[in-house]
């Protein structure tokens, strides 16, 4: 059962952090290039514009959920399993989610990168 809860925790981390990342990415696409915005309207207006984007706040809420899922997973499983498993699976899940929900053009180059980075993170953190 301990094993089941640890993997449930990993699953929750992957789902919540992928959702969070996609929402943050969507929010920032709506806002547009921050560098150009800052030149036009100044830093204060740029920060206000970012904070007023609803999907940004939702994204941050999902990031917080992901953090608590990590704490939950760590309370049931070893850090040497939870850390690499959740980090590497999140990279691959994000590539799928970016293609599905953000309609990013995930070409062969980016798929290869997602798999390489996921494998690398797994080996480095393991």
């Amino acid at each position, binding site marked *: 059962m301990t094993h089941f809860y640890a993997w449930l925790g990993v699953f929750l981390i992957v789902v919540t952090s992928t959702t969070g990342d996609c929402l943050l990415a969507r929010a920032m696409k709506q806002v547009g290039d921050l560098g150009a915005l800052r030149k036009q309207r100044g830093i204060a207006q740029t920060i206000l514009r970012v904070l007023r984007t609803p999907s940004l706040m939702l994204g941050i809420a999902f990031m917080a959920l992901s953090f608590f899922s990590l704490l939950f997973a760590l309370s049931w499983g070893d850090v040497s399993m939870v850390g690499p498993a959740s980090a590497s699976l999140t990279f691959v899940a994000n590539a799928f989610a*970016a293609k599905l929900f953000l309609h990013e053009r995930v070409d062969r180059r980016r798929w290869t990168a997602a798999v390489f980075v996921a494998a690398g993170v797994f080996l*480095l953190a393991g």
Partner: protein
Amino acid sequence: MTAGKYFVLLGVAAFGAIGDTLLARGMKSFGAVAPSQIFHLLSAVLNPWVFLGIFFLLAFMSAYLSALSWADLTYVLPATAFGYVFIAVIARFLLHEHISPVRWLGIVLITAGVGFVAGGPESSSTKKTGGTESALSTAGTRP
């Protein structure tokens, strides 16, 4: 892509890695927290290492959001992973820690993955615009 944008991506990798390391260092000296004393975690913020870690993670968040404003998620994410490579290299050459061959292989894979993405366009929309431009110029040359 301008040099400024590469600096933002470098910031994403470096600030995230430094922030995580500072948090881990702080929480080691703070000690384990039992689930029944979960609110005790709030006082961890007063630990200097944790405080500095949060400062770096705020810098990471600004750089990350800035990068997402002009680049795809699948372009920015490998940059965050490059932070792990930074930490490993710092651990090896500044702290003289041993890095196993398996970890070196991990470093090589992440670096190769980042290289793959960095060689391509940073945004799908940029690619589309490029496509439209070339289509227009082709149309323009037609008699």
